[in-house]
């Protein structure tokens, strides 16, 4: 993965997760589409990889044990997703 700054990483995560969401809904009504399933798994893997990079640099993205927090309880740190501008 090429080096990305925080905003670029976040956009990549949003784009990959959105792809996974749309594929998830498609698979819910097309559960036998093997090609879609393979596609979904590939996207899920890329998403996990990108999230891991982001979390290591900028802290946890998910609560309740899905993400680790190293050195400090970064979960409660700013900013929150709706605080998008200064």
């Amino acid at each position, binding site marked *: 993965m090429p080096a990305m700054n925080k905003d670029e990483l*976040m*956009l990549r*995560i*949003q784009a990959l*997760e*959105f792809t996974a*969401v*749309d594929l*998830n*809904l*498609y698979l*819910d*009504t*097309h*559960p036998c589409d093997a090609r879609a399933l393979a596609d979904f798994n590939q996207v899920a893997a890329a998403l996990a990889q990108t999230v891991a990079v982001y979390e290591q640099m900028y802290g*946890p*993205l*998910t*609560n*309740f044990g*899905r993400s680790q927090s190293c050195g400090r309880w970064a*979960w409660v740190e700013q900013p*929150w*997703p*709706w605080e*998008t*501008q200064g």
Partner: protein
Amino acid sequence: MWVYEKKLEYPVKVSGPNPKLAKAVITQYGGPDGELAASLRYLTQRYSMPTSQAKGVLTDIGTEELAHMEIVAAIVYNLLKNAPLEQIKAAGMEGYYADHDRSLFFVNGDGVPWVAAYIQSKGDPIADLHEDMAAEEKARSTYEHLINLSDDPDVTDVLRFLREREVVHFQRFGETLNIVWEHLSSRKVW
């Protein structure tokens, strides 16, 4: 159960304070065809669906609607944040400001509070899925009205995303209707 991901499904930014636009957009937060209504409707209907596939669709779309509710909240929050009182008064939002300052509350564009009568869980899967399809069309239509009203291109961009999601959700509910109907016909339960 739900976990929370500390990011928006789609990025939100606004061009500047705009209480007039916020007053209209808030209907997709607490109004009859908004994202709170959509998420609660699907998440409560899912319990009595007859097939696992239908439970999956309602759980997944219901969860995505919670994420959309958060996006609408982010739009309204940023349109009201630092809005001077003069603009709030000019927008006719004194009543809202008196009760809520610049915080988010579940009302429509005229301040009418959210009510459970906006949704239904009939327990009849065919009736419920038709309601869901209608809900998606009403939401799509509302986003189109908001796009017509919007004078902020950044907000319009987010509204377009949310509108397209309603088109996709309608398609999934329609496919689920087909599947559930076939299932019920094959079991000859009605």
